[in-house]
């Protein structure tokens, strides 16, 4: 273990550096969101067919991206935790899950608000909507399983197995559009061909996606700090920190 990054696998070492990173990611998230919303609501042109209602995609698409990406990140941490038996990995997976569930919910909610004026219904049983709903259930199941097991090590491992089984579902979500090919429009942004939308729209969406990304990092770090304190409350360094805080007050 000469690679210096492994130092931070110890919760005690990660706690202070996470604390230092949170303000930076929060500021970045706020600035990017302001810029993205400005571009999205004031600069981007009105859509020819969907009118102003389309502007909800500046929140909807980044949220949908993050909801799937965060599940992958969570499952990645879970796999690391299972393979290397590191405590921090399980804590990271626990810290990411609520943010992932939140973005899944936002994606579904904004999708419903966009669907009403565009498709004429809040909800349609399209494959991508349904898989996003299933993703929300997977997040909720992960959180429920973790909270139902009182022993943290056991909870981490059981959650990790569940996350790895559930991760099979994420590619199904992504390819469901091609598989079932129903009502939901195909992806508008692709790496291999020119995007089928105005450049300013694309910029607004990318800025918002980056903002969502920074927000996720900031909240996950904040949450993991709470989890570390909760689980290590009897450790020497937490006791010292508590006494230091008391002395400062």
């Amino acid at each position, binding site marked *: 273990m000469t690679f210096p990054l492994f130092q931070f696998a110890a919760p005690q070492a990660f706690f202070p550096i996470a604390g230092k990173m949170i303000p930076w990611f929060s500021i970045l998230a706020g600035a990017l969101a302001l810029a993205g919303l400005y571009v999205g609501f004031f600069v981007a042109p009105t859509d020819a067919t969907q009118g102003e209602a389309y502007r909800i995609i500046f929140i909807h698409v980044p949220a949908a991206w993050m909801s799937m990406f965060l599940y992958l990140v969570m499952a990645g941490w879970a796999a690391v935790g299972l393979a290397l038996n590191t405590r921090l990995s399980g804590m990271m997976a626990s810290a990411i899950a609520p943010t992932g569930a939140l973005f899944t919910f936002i994606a579904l909610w904004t999708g419903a608000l966009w669907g009403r004026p565009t498709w004429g219904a809040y909800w349609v049983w399209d494959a991508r909507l349904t898989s996003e709903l299933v993703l929300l*259930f997977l997040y909720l199941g992960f959180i429920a399983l973790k909270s139902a097991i009182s022993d943290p090590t*056991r909870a981490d*491992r059981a959650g990790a197995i*569940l996350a790895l*089984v559930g991760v099979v579902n994420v590619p199904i979500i992504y390819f469901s559009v091609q598989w079932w090919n129903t009502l939901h429009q195909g992806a508008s942004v692709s790496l291999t061909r020119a995007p089928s939308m105005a450049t300013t729209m694309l910029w607004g969406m990318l800025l918002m996606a980056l903002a969502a990304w920074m927000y996720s990092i900031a909240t996950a770090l904040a949450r993991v700090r709470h989890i570390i304190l909760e689980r290590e409350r009897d450790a020497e360094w937490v006791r010292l920190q508590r006494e230091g805080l008391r002395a400062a007050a």
Partner: protein
Amino acid sequence: MLDAFALVLRREMQIALRRKGDVLNVLVFFIVVGSLFPLGVGPEPNQLRAMAAGVAWLGALLAAVLSLPRLFAADHADGTLEQMLVSPQPLGVIVLAKVAGHWLLTGLPLTLAAPIIGLQYGLPLDALGLLIASLLIGTPVLSLLGVAGAALTLGVRGGGALLALLILPLFVPVLVFGAGAVTASLTGINPGAHLSLLGAFLAVSSFVGPWAACAALRVALD
């Protein structure tokens, strides 16, 4: 290894034969659920025919979830499960025998009882055959993935409801393609693709399910 498989399977069968109620309850539950749907949605024959496969598949899903908590509970309570974990036989073989037992005691009876629901809902004969075929390929997936859920929730607070929450979302592809095969044949589309995809899920879950179940059992009895 084959001996261990046969031994565990025979034991599952013997226990089930001595407590026939457990197996029969699941079967009766399946038929009751199927019979109550028309009372809720009305007796219109065309509507019922279109719903038949979905109702039969949902009934099978719920019946499977209902029967899963028992899969390890008794063995866990009397210490047999611990002996299985420390035995020299690979845990995967024992888990696979448990899966086979679960399928023979729930999946297979449900498949054989499905024509009752099919006839109640006025399914034509070829669609009825497809319903049986899709259940025959699909119900082992329920047992294979379900065993992982049962192992994960072993000895956990609120196990039954939690098991349903964990495992039902994973059953979605089976439900979609299982019921889809029958609906496709009703609308004159070749259902081969649906059955092939079901077969693909069976192949994937026969690897993922027992692996996850073994890992979860080791965590639960750590």
